[in-house]
């Protein structure tokens, strides 16, 4: 494997192009040794006609290295790696759908997004079914009861007890990965910002890092600091909103009402920085979109200081309420072995006791010189996912206050080769290179992989939202639960449909 650090680029020629068997055994051995699969995707092979180049991107948390390898697959069938490396189950389903590459021996080859003209939509496709006289099936979605994104949930139930849940997505599929290559390049940053609208800063940062690596430019320290502030404000807004929604789902309304408002307060802080509540425009390849004066930084800190006791008061009420905690504890439990074996990320993994956090394991940018202590809890249930969020809120607040009080001096944009114009790409990208960018978004690890052709145009752009890994965690968490606990379990993950559907 070629070893890279987060946010680095390398010539494609340096990535070992292995024979099928060797590729397979290298990936499986690495996974058995504790590596995690960040991305596993196809590209029309630049060398041999008709073949698909399969890329594997792995992460070794012990060394902080990312490992890249590739193989060319000529036929339409390859032996599935999933039985030996379950982390790949979703990626292999995606390969079948996108590249018509069938992983032979995959235990459950169901479509992921239903792109193109397929006769059956997500809700009409085949589902795993449990048979039995008293077993019944519950179908929910795509249009849900609340104001949320579309998805279809199929429960196999025995009375109130859920034996199995299967989630069918694809309703939000709008062809972003294809469009990243085919549509005018000035749209790319906007695709990044809308991959998951509540993670605009996270995805835009990953995109910017990948492009900067390929263009050979480094954003100035001040820009890195501003991006990190935006990323943590995004985490604050969403975690606060999630705690409120969790409270609402168990009928504990005070916290639901306060956190609903406070989430907006954090969004408004982001709008102070860049004019948009979701951080649109804050991150641009080469740096940051907006500078922050001393007075503005002070204003943000002051307003943050006013919100903090309100958030603490609202969450203390929730965590001090035995009736609410009784509903959280033991509900929707995941085991650490599941998180490890299936490659779950973010809050869901940390709530299983795993210190899995890009900011700590694969630092880049500001995280090379600063640290937020990774928040974990061991119990794997709704309580753990709520508690991890509460701890992360406290730590992100401290981080934002600290960084804003001491912003590095200097410009917010790198001097870009070939001059720079608003909205234009950062300059020529290195030809035949590959770059990997990881960002710890509020849901978890965001991974972008960009590959260029010899002319420096994008030849492949792979996006892995944390939800892509974690939707399966929700399915597992529902086993043996009451179906009435589904909203609570669902909210405790709060996964992205559009981020997974692309």
């Amino acid at each position: 494997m070629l070893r890279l650090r987060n946010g680095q680029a390398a010539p494609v020629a340096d990535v070992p192009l292995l024979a099928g068997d060797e590729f397979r055994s290298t990936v499986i051995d690495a996974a058995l040794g504790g590596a995690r699969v960040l991305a596993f995707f196809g590209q029309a092979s630049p060398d041999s006609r008709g073949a698909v180049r399969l890329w594997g991107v792995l992460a070794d948390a012990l060394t902080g290295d990312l490992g890249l390898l590739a193989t060319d697959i000529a036929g339409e069938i390859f032996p599935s790696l999933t039985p030996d490396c379950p982390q790949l189950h979703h990626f292999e389903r995606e390969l079948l759908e996108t590249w018509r590459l069938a992983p032979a021996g995959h235990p459950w080859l169901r479509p992921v997004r239903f792109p193109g003209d397929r006769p059956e939509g997500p809700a009409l496709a085949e589902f795993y079914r449990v048979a039995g006289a008293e077993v019944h099936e519950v179908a929910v979605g795509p249009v849900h009861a609340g104001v949320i994104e579309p998805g279809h949930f199929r429960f196999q139930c025995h009375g109130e007890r859920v034996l199995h849940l299967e989630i069918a997505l694809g309703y939000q599929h709008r062809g972003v990965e294809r469009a990243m290559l085919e549509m005018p390049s000035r749209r790319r940053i906007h695709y990044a910002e809308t991959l998951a609208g509540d993670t605009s800063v996270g995805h835009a940062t990953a995109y910017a890092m990948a492009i900067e690596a390929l263009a050979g430019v480094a954003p100035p320290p001040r820009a890195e600091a501003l991006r990190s502030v935006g990323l943590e404000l995004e985490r604050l807004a969403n975690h606060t909103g999630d705690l409120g929604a969790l409270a609402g789902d168990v009928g504990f309304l005070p916290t639901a009402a306060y956190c609903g408002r406070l989430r907006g307060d954090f969004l408004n802080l982001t709008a102070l920085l860049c004019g948009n509540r979701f951080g649109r425009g804050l991150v641009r390849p080469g740096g940051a979109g907006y500078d922050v004066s001393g007075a503005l930084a002070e204003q943000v800190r002051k307003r943050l200081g006013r919100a903090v006791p309100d958030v603490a008061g609202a969450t203390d009420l929730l965590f001090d309420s035995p009736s609410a905690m009784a509903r959280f504890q033991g509900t929707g439990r995941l085991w650490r072995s599941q998180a490890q074996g299936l490659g779950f990320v973010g809050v869901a993994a940390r709530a299983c006791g795993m210190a899995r956090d890009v900011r700590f394991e694969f630092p880049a940018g500001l995280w090379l010189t600063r640290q937020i202590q990774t928040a974990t809890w061991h119990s794997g249930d709704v309580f753990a996912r709520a508690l991890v969020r509460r701890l992360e809120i406290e730590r992100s607040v401290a981080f934002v206050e600290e960084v804003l009080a001491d912003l590095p001096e200097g410009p917010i944009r790198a001097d870009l080769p070939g001059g720079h114009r608003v909205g234009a790409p950062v300059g020529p990208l290195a030809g035949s290179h590959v770059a990997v960018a990881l960002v710890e978004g509020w849901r978890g690890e965001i991974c972008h992989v960009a590959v260029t052709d010899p002319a420096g145009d994008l030849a492949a752009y792979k996006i892995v939202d944390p939800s892509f890994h974690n939707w399966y965690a929700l399915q597992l968490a529902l086993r043996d639960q009451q179906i009435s606990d589904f909203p609570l379990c669902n909210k405790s993950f709060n996964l992205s449909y559009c981020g997974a559907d692309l």
Partner: protein
Amino acid sequence: MHFILLERLRQGRRTLQWPAGPAPDLPDRFRGRPLVDPGKCSAGCRECGEVCPTDALQFGPGPLAALDLGKCLFCGDCAAACPEGAIAFSRDFAMAVREREDLLIGSPEARLLADALDGETRRLFGRSLRLRQVSAGGCNACEADANVLQTVVFDISRFGIQFVASPRHADGLLITGPVTRNMRLALEKTYAAVPAPRLVIAMGACAISGGPYAGHPEACDGAGGVVPVDLFIPGCPPHPLTVLDGLLRLLGRL
């Protein structure tokens, strides 16, 4: 219990005064209604058009003719690119209109806004409007800011507006997203399930024009090609105030 009451007192009353009182102060950098002055565009350099991600700028034979609010992502790149200051973004949050072509801004004075419903529809919905939200392929930012309307800050239920769980209980749809091909059937069925007379509101650039996904074969360039739209609320996403303003104008409450 008394801790809950004490916290309630400490958190205080947070609901907006607007529209009875003043609107909240929006950030200096907030990008609301663009001010477009083709008279200032003498060079006809089309720099603005070259940076616009969604081709929202329309040109005459030479100079800038209009900006299409329905396509605009409010990134502000056009204003930054224009050497003559022909485009600027104001902090005016009121932008919703009833007709698609009213979203074209071609003069600095233009400020078309939504007319109220008339006659019987207004009598039916003016004081009580139940909406079913359909998310159809966007990025979830519009949905997030539609949810915000239900918080104590905006509290739309004080205007008799509510989001309901079933289209059967609804007077209309609030649609977000470009309407992906995979969501089209679900949207059509949901629309059919709403009893007539019914309203359709397209919220955000995606639902109006496809937004950043305009021209994608995986989506339908907005809700207008699938169901008839009664109110267009531009933005990416629209600020909650923009949405509330549009809804209140539609109901004749503003």
